[in-house]
């Protein structure tokens, strides 16, 4: 999966563990039974097992334990909010430091990436064909497990490269694109046909897929960052955060980036856009969030990282107007909001600051039309599924961001991977119904 080299934009957020650290940390693991870390992992990686395998020098076994449970195991090692998941559940906490599970997982998956061996093989052919709409974490996870179950899988990815947000939407110092592409390559090695540059709905019709495939997984993710709905938004220097991050990753520079950057939003993408602005040379980067600090959806460690990079934060404030000069951003008018959490503007509290860029990171739009095309019932663009990822259409399943409700707090890569696995399991059961 060739791609031009992406830019690192500086040192990684967390350095890989040194060999001595690996030994000490792996041996510090207590090897709990029915371990809380494993229970806290959405994909259920048998964490004590992979750590024990590292400790005994079986790196292939460690990597297999990880990747078997989580097709995105290398990405998740880097981007999972481990404090909220496995490491937060470690029995050592809070009295002693948790085992550095994420970094041990990175150690094992880094080894696998360097080694290059294939860990898994396709299942006995079932003669069934499955189309996966979207080549992000959920789609690739579904495709990987469907292939291991013997089904013939085609992934339709609208971008030039697979991987979805892992490839394009996360800053490289958290997740290099190479890692996401390696994971996609492992899926391809199982015989999955990943067709990039093909958008379902325009490049190929939903009806066509319904006619040609025995089952469909919709894993289309989400779309662009919606507009703020304020005057001046079409000025030069205003960015969609995802476009901004993608450009930074692909080109190592963003045209028209000035000295002073305002990022609107309080989530992890907002953090990424802010730190990327900083690393690209902006001297003053401020995040503006409409509610109090405690309501920000970015993880505490991300916020801490942004602070350490020099990003500033303003809470309880919303943008009112982008001030322009000759078609370019010149300033941002803001208004303070009630600190009661309602985000209600306080009349008469508006003020204006000079800025060169405004980056909006207030969530993503939904692909309602695509769901409509498959006849899938949705709520404001969020596909309605049951616990087995089944939609109202018997042959259509949905996984990943397209079925996560806004603010549900579960739009993590690791959750997407798990839903993809669940969809694969459900489809396999569906396709084998009556054939046993």
């Amino acid at each position, binding site marked *: 999966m060739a791609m031009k080299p992406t830019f690192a934009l500086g040192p990684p957020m967390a350095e890989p563990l040194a060999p001595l650290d690996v030994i000490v940390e792996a041996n510090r693991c207590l090897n*709990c039974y029915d371990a809380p870390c494993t229970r806290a992992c959405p994909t259920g990686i048998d964490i004590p097992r992979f750590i024990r395998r590292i*400790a005994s020098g079986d790196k292939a076994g460690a990597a297999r334990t990880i990747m078997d449970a989580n097709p995105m195991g290398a990405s998740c090692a880097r981007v999972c909010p481990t404090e909220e998941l496995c490491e937060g559940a470690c*029995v050592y906490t809070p009295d002693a430091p948790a085992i550095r599970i994420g970094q041990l997982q990175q150690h094992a998956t880094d080894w696998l990436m360097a080694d290059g061996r294939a860990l898994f093989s396709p299942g006995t052919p079932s003669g069934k064909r499955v189309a996966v709409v979207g080549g992000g974490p959920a789609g690739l996870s579904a495709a990987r497990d469907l292939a291991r179950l013997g089904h013939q899988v085609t992934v339709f990815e609208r971008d030039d490269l697979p991987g979805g947000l892992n490839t394009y939407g996360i800053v490289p110092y958290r997740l290099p694109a190479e890692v996401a592409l390696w994971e996609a390559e492992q899926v391809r090695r199982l015989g999955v046909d990943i067709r990039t540059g093909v958008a379902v709905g325009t490049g190929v019709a939903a009806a066509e897929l319904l006619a040609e495939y025995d089952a469909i997984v919709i894993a289309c993710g989400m779309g662009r960052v919606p507009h703020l709905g304020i005057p001046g938004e079409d000025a030069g220097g205003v960015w969609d955060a995802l476009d901004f991050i993608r450009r930074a990753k692909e080109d190592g520079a963003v045209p028209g980036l000035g000295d002073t950057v305002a990022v609107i939003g309080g989530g992890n993408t907002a953090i990424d856009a802010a730190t990327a602005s900083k690393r690209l040379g902006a001297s003053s980067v401020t995040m503006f969030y409409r509610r109090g600090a405690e309501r920000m959806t970015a993880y505490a460690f991300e916020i801490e990282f942004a602070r350490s990079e020099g990003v500033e934060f303003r809470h309880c404030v919303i943008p009112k107007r982008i001030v322009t000069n000759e078609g370019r951003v010149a300033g941002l008018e803001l208004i303070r909001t009630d600190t009661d959490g309602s985000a209600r503007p306080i009349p008469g509290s508006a003020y204006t600051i000079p800025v060169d860029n405004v980056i909006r990171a207030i969530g993503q739009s939904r692909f309602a039309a695509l769901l409509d095309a498959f006849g899938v019932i949705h709520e404001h663009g969020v596909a309605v599924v049951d616990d087995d990822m089944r939609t109202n259409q018997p042959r259509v399943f949905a996984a990943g961001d397209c079925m996560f409700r806004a603010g549900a707090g579960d739009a993590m890569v690791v959750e997407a991977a798990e839903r993809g696995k669940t969809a694969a399991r459900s489809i396999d059961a569906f396709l084998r119904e009556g054939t046993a």
Partner: protein
Amino acid sequence: MADLSSNLAGIRSPNPFWLASAPPTNSGYQVMRAFAAGWGGAVWKTLGEPIVNVTSRFAGLNAGATKMIGMNNIELITDRPLDDNLREIAACKAAYPDRPIVASLMTGCTQRSWHELVNAVQDVAVDGFELNFGCPHGMSERGMGSAVGQDPALVEQITRWVKEAARVPVIVKLTPNITDVRYTARAAARGGADAISLINTLNSLMGVDLDTWNPIPHVDGKSSHGGFCGPAVKPIALNMVGECARDPQVTVPISGIGGIATWRDAVEFMLMGATNVQVCTAVMRDGFRIVADMIEGLNNYLDDRGIASVAEIVGKTVPRFVDWNDLNLDYKIVARIDPATCINCNRCWIACEDAAHQCIDRLVDETGASVLEVDEEHCVGCNLCSMVCPVDECITMVRVDDGESVHTWRERLSVPS
């Protein structure tokens, strides 16, 4: 400040911590450094006809990230001329007259060769002799070391020969590579030994290299069994010391050796009957400096208990080291898990479930938190759960019998049917 001085069969030292005859006592330079660090005495690297060593001599046993919980070696006795060793012994004695230097000896199995060696060495005023009847590797193939130490008759005979010539106390160092160490200990006592020291190293092969399939350590692709020592052998050594200490026919004092690395280990050996202790592996890992911690730790231990002299603790646990037949069958303990300190790692549960008596229950309390509880009716008090628990004091073994009735297997056997 407690009195730490010790007296092993007339060999007095300012503290009970001696260096065992081993690589750390190979030269005057090392022993000077050791005495400067505070070691109470030293048993010099075994003297005898100088040998030729191989390179690649040691190998370590690691436990997880902890290096060298044991080591083995295929190094032989001194490879330096006797005169060099004697000159350096004399220099060390002159510099540190209060520290005993004991000369470890090994030679061929004749009265004449032992007399010659003893006479050659005692001219430099060593404080005692230690007869190396223990080394399991190399020298044993030449009829020395453990080849002698495994034969009670030879032990007795050679001890007798040495005693004929020696003007200073004679310690016989015993090999653990024997079915029952009491037989050679008794033989040493019969031969007139003033003390015994044990254990020497255990026969061992440290490992096999998974890539080359060479044994470890290898000498040009081949290896030979070596002597195993260090913390991993401590329980074996402690048992052998205890067995000798409680044997009425082993009538001589004991110098304890085998995996002693801290003051705690030393206290255990002394409680188990050792008058003093000898250390090697811990020094090979961490250097002579550890003796300062051993001295301080032992002193604090004694002071905390109001014990004036370390000599008072020697052998105090020996009467409690008995035959299994004399254990109280009515004594009953069960495990109790403290929910306040339990971290819910479930290690106790899986250990009990798979390897013991399936008597820990995983319950959920009213708040939904998981709780581990011992089924005391079925708990046999094996201790396994408390051993695997990572939290100190979380699982305690609690006595539940009436505390009075005593009933032993020996008593059961003696009851007429």
